[in-house]
């Protein structure tokens, strides 16, 4: 009896930890791993931007305006990716721009997710009429094209990077609300919630200690995916002149500033565009892998 039991105990102890198991499933998806590495590079770039960038991103080298990248005629190693119309180094601006994008992503996801989770929890636990009111408001927000709504909000608040982030956070919030509410409603049915209630848990404890931790998996995935949406929307707002204002080296703003030189100097628009593309693609790939790894339905036993 005790022998079989101890064998069982050993088996349980040898079972891989949650993180190991997660990595096992995440590794299956090669695109996701690829995305993860690019994302890590992006984070490092953003973190050490002032050390890596060869020049000050706003320093203007007037003698070198619109220099092509190094592999084209007229390019120099001093400005590997060329310069913009004001003679600023493209590479430095892109590297420092990563900082802004990362900042936008973090702040927007944090604001949208925390607000959305709290509203979603309240909606899930609220009486039916309050739930209906909250969800209809969220439906109204979702009914507008997201970028258009963000544009209107920024137009009202005044164009700046901070206001753009607030607008994007408001636009992304309903997704978190719906996701949280759906998970809460399905978790609330389970017996462990009832037994917590019989044990005397109050509503707040029930919401945050008992139910919320069991709803987090889909929210984490949504967080990863909306990180890229936030970057893309911030760039779009920047391009339309409603986001970061010049001379901030934000990728979307850089695109907008260089628009008139598209035909004369392809590098001024191509590089910020490629930077946005690669970052968003990498994060989306990573998010897909994250979803697959966290979704128990896709797990093999």
């Amino acid at each position, binding site marked *: 009896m005790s022998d079989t039991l101890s064998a069982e105990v050993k088996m349980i102890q040898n079972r891989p930890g949650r993180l190991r198991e997660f990595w096992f499933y995440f590794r299956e998806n090669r695109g996701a791993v690829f995305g993860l590495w690019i994302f890590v590079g992006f984070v490092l770039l953003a973190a050490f931007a002032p050390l890596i960038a060869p020049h000050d991103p706003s320093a203007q080298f007037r003698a070198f305006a619109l220099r092509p990248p190094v592999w084209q005629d007229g390019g120099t190693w001093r400005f590997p990716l060329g310069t913009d119309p004001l003679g600023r180094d493209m590479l430095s601006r892109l590297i420092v721009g990563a900082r802004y994008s990362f900042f936008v992503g973090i702040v927007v996801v944090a604001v949208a997710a925390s607000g959305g989770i709290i509203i979603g929890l309240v909606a899930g636990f609220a009486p039916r009429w309050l739930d209906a009111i909250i969800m209809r408001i969220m439906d109204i927000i979702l009914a507008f094209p997201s970028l258009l709504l963000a544009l209107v909000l920024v137009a009202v608040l005044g164009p700046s990077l901070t206001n753009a982030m607030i607008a994007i956070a408001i636009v992304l919030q309903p997704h978190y609300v719906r996701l949280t509410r759906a998970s809460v409603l399905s978790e609330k049915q389970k017996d*462990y919630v009832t037994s917590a209630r019989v044990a005397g848990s109050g509503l707040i404890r029930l919401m945050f200690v008992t139910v919320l931790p069991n709803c987090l998996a889909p929210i984490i995935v949504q967080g990863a995916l909306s990180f890229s949406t936030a970057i893309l929307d911030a760039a779009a707002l920047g391009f339309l002149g409603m986001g970061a204002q010049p001379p901030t080296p934000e990728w979307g703003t850089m695109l907008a500033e260089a628009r008139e030189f598209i035909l004369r100097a392809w590098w001024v628009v191509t590089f910020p565009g490629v930077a946005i593309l690669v970052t968003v693609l990498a994060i989306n790939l990573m998010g897909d892998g994250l979803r697959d790894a966290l979704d128990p339905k896709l797990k093999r036993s």
Partner: protein
Amino acid sequence: MTAPVMTATALARHYEVGGGMFAKPQTLRAVARVDFDLYAGKTLAVVGESGCGKSTLARMITMIEEPTAGSLTLDGQPVVRARWPKLRQDVQIVFQDPYGSLNPRQRVGTILMEPLAINRRDMKKAAREEKAREMLGLVGLRPEHFDRYPHMFSGGQRQRIAIARALMLDPKVLVLDEPVSALDVSIQSAILNLLVDLQERMGLAYLFISHDLSVVRHVADEIIVMYLGKAVERGPKADVFAAPRHPYTKALLSATPQADPAARKERIKLVGELPSPLDVPPGCPFAPRCWKVQDICRETRPELDLPAHAAACFFPLKPGENATDAVLSEEDFNTESLPQTD
């Protein structure tokens, strides 16, 4: 006899179902006027098929839902909503599904200490932990299980954890809502023995809900048989099993398998479906399926009769009476009493 720990008088729970903007809501009588007493150290078993209101009864007793009518007293004090937080500590519940009743994100230790953390604020953390570890030993788990997550345990072990959690607050009444139905038969007996053992040791009153009569035969002192939200028979275990008085109880008992192949089998097959609880027949709810039905059964609702071993039936079975005899003697009965189905 000592005073009962818990007394329910005419306990009822109705639900309003349907009813949109224009439709009038219908009333679903999940539990209608059920009476019982629970005594310390005794087990009251509630049996019946699915949908007869057993679980609703459990939810009312554990103060998850408020009864629509009737009264409930705990230790002589009335159970009303305002006093729930205080009284809840004395009534705890163990659920059927051990996989859904433990929070997958909490360690066993946290699960066990949670009731204390909520209700015994003045208790030191070390004291709580000590008590939780002691309880872990009491239900037959080992100390190293304290820091594990529920998914690392088997169904039987999880049910032990659920029982330990229910006992953390030293309740007087433990509601067991089909505690062994989801377990393997070999594990079932281990859990049942544990429950019997704990009852003796802690003087608990059990309300044991089950549809498995062989389990009930093992643990119960008294039995209530429910049908469509009403108690149709109530009495001591031995009497109910030996001489069921209500035809429904008789049919229910005949459905339990017997281990003796030589025993004469008298299997009563009920015809028809359980009537919808939205539209309970005006008379005896069992009348459409009963083989002894007469006109009075369809018109007047019978109430529980004798106090010791009560049955809600106008024509209770006498000891030794066989259902098949009745059916054979009235051959045209079956066609007549079939419910209107197509």
